[in-house]
């Protein structure tokens, strides 16, 4: 959890928002620091978190989370965190010995011809459904990252269907939040990916867009973060707010500053 980002977003773990879809995007840089932020943020906020981690292993997330002051193993043990390790499950589905694992795995679609993500949705829903005994705050679905699904051969519309149902279940019915990371690159001509990104832009309430600096690599400024706060259309047309900050990633923290106001420049 990066305090400076909390201030920019006007968020605090004491009162997490509800029913929101947050889209994290990165272009020409690595936006995974945002995932780490939201993971530790919601765990500290006392939300029930389902983390679909497709890109990295559990130990990777755990080590970084410890640097940010959260223990994922502890959270898993007390039932606050449900961690789906995509790398491991995918391997189990393809090469695992046990038949029933293949049949029930959320990543069953990898071995099937159809790319239906229904099993994964059901995994998310069952893991976030309140089970009476626990007293966590609103449920949260966190995904890192959605582009991997496309690499695994899932059609973009199936990804969108999956997100649609997650929105229905998590945002609309359980009044929880969804945070999703996608990569985006205009130059890559990856139409399927762009369709997913554009579509999610329409659906999301908040977009955090990390970009590499257009002028290239810099030691003291690692990129810029666009914060796009969408005005709701619920009661009237509202202005969409766009703010841009530059950031520098440190070992345990990320600092944000106005453009051109990096400590190294001043």
């Amino acid at each position, binding site marked *: 959890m990066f305090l400076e980002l909390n201030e920019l977003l006007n968020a605090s773990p004491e009162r997490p928002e509800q029913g929101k879809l947050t889209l994290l*995007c990165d*272009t*020409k840089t690595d936006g995974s620091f945002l995932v780490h932020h939201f993971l530790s943020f919601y765990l500290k906020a006392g939300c029930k978190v389902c983390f679909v981690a497709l890109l990295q292993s559990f130990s990777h997330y755990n080590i970084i989370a410890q640097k940010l002051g959260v223990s994922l193993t502890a959270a898993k043990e007390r039932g606050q965190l449900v961690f789906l390790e995509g790398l491991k499950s995918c391997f189990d589905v393809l090469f695992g010995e046990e038949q029933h694992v293949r049949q029930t795995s959320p990543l069953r679609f990898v071995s099937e011809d159809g790319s239906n993500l*229904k099993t994964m*949705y059901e995994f998310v829903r069952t893991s976030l459904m309140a089970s009476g005994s626990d007293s966590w705050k609103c449920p949260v679905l966190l995904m890192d990252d959605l582009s991997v699904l496309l690499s695994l051969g899932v059609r973009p*519309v199936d990804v*969108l*269907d999956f997100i*649609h*149902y997650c929105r*229905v279940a998590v945002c*609309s019915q359980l009044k929880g939040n969804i945070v999703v990371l996608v990569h*985006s690159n*205009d130059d890559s001509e990856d139409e399927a990916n762009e*369709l997913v990104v*554009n*579509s999610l*832009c*329409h*659906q999301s309430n908040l*977009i955090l*867009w990390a*970009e*590499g600096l*257009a002028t290239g690599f810099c030691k003291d400024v690692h990129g*810029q973060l*666009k914060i*796009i706060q*969408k*005005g709701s*259309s*619920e*009661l*009237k*047309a*509202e*202005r*969409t*707010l*766009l*703010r841009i900050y530059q950031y520098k990633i440190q070992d345990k923290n990320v600092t944000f500053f*106005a*453009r*051109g*106001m990096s400590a190294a420049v001043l």
Partner: protein
Amino acid sequence: MAELEGRGRWGDPWGEGEPGGVRKWWGGGARGRESLGAGVGEEEPGRGGDLERRRKHCGGLGGARGAMGGARGRGSQGESWRKRRGTWQVRGVGGAGATLRAQGLSPYGEVIGRRRRGRLVGSWKGRGVCVFPNGGEAIPISPARGPFPADTAECEGHSLLKTFVAASAHRGESVHIFGFEIPEEELLAGFDPDMTVRLLYQDGFTDPLRWTGEAGGFGAEEFTALGVAGRLARGPAGPVTVVLDSLSWLLLRQPLPAVCQTLGRIPRAAASAGLRVTRILALLHEDLHPPGLVETLRSLAQAVVGVRPAPEGIGSGEDAPRLASMLQRKGTGKVLTKEEYFTVLAGFTPKALGEPTGSVPRDEDADPHSTVDPTANLTFNLRLSDTERRARDGMPLPFHFSAQKKSSLLEASTSGGKIYYEPDAADDLDEEDPDDDLDV
């Protein structure tokens, strides 16, 4: 009482037009027109002449607006508006008759009725009206896009769609909203309770693909002419508006020809069930589709409103100004295009903010690199406002001669100078020798 008949007559994209129904356009008759300004009010409400005049009036509204006390704001040509029981009723594009409660607000929209054989014919009737909110094209999220005004991150079209919904409901039609993108409570929020009665939400959001097996929802596979008509038949009788939120959702999951054919068959299927579909409103996210598909839909729709974020400086701070580019097919084969700034106020009333002037950059598609403005996005200011520019221009520069100084210098020159020379005793000058004064 002027009763106007709407008839689909020209450019019928969805197949055969349905029989013209009767719809009350302006209920107020002459009584309603009394405040319309000079030169109109004294006319008796006779059918032909009245409408003829009314049409003229509508056409010349830009001029007439000035005569109407209290009307403010820059209006556009061709709007049709009318006071009815203390409220302004406006014909918007695509037949959205939005009601402006506050008197004097400049309504937004344009006339779509025209006179034909003594009757006004609405040419949009029963046709698809596509609303194109421009999303991706205008989303300045790619770093290569260059500087953008801060408030143009994205332009959603839901608020505009809701103004059309409100207009239809206000006309007393029942509005069937086939919602796939937004849950019911969010879509119906903000409408008056008396209006909500007329809004029927067909829930395509909760379980469109039948994954959870919840009953009562509208499935994507149900989106056929018969399926839609079946849903419509469950509602009250009377004129019906069909709203699709959004067409993009359907188009991503069903092939384009099938969707278009379904759209064309809906009015007929409903007619056989005894219902009259007055219009189909559909929202399309342009950035999710290939350009060819968007063009195809444009060619099929009776009216198209594209929404883009307005440049900075339009509207006041509270508003979320948008730029609407309207394209509308008229019965005679004329195509009307227009651009106008607007915003949507609470209660889903549109408010016009004037038309863009020629200087407004419209190079949405132009390569941003070619027009990079180095003065944009700086942490310091390199621009001048008008007042600052005036102040700067007014500043006398040190090398500038003021008129006073100039004249004083000129004065001095007229008086001229003289040299008085009195030869000294030692001044023994030889006129012939040029070097005489040298001490050699």
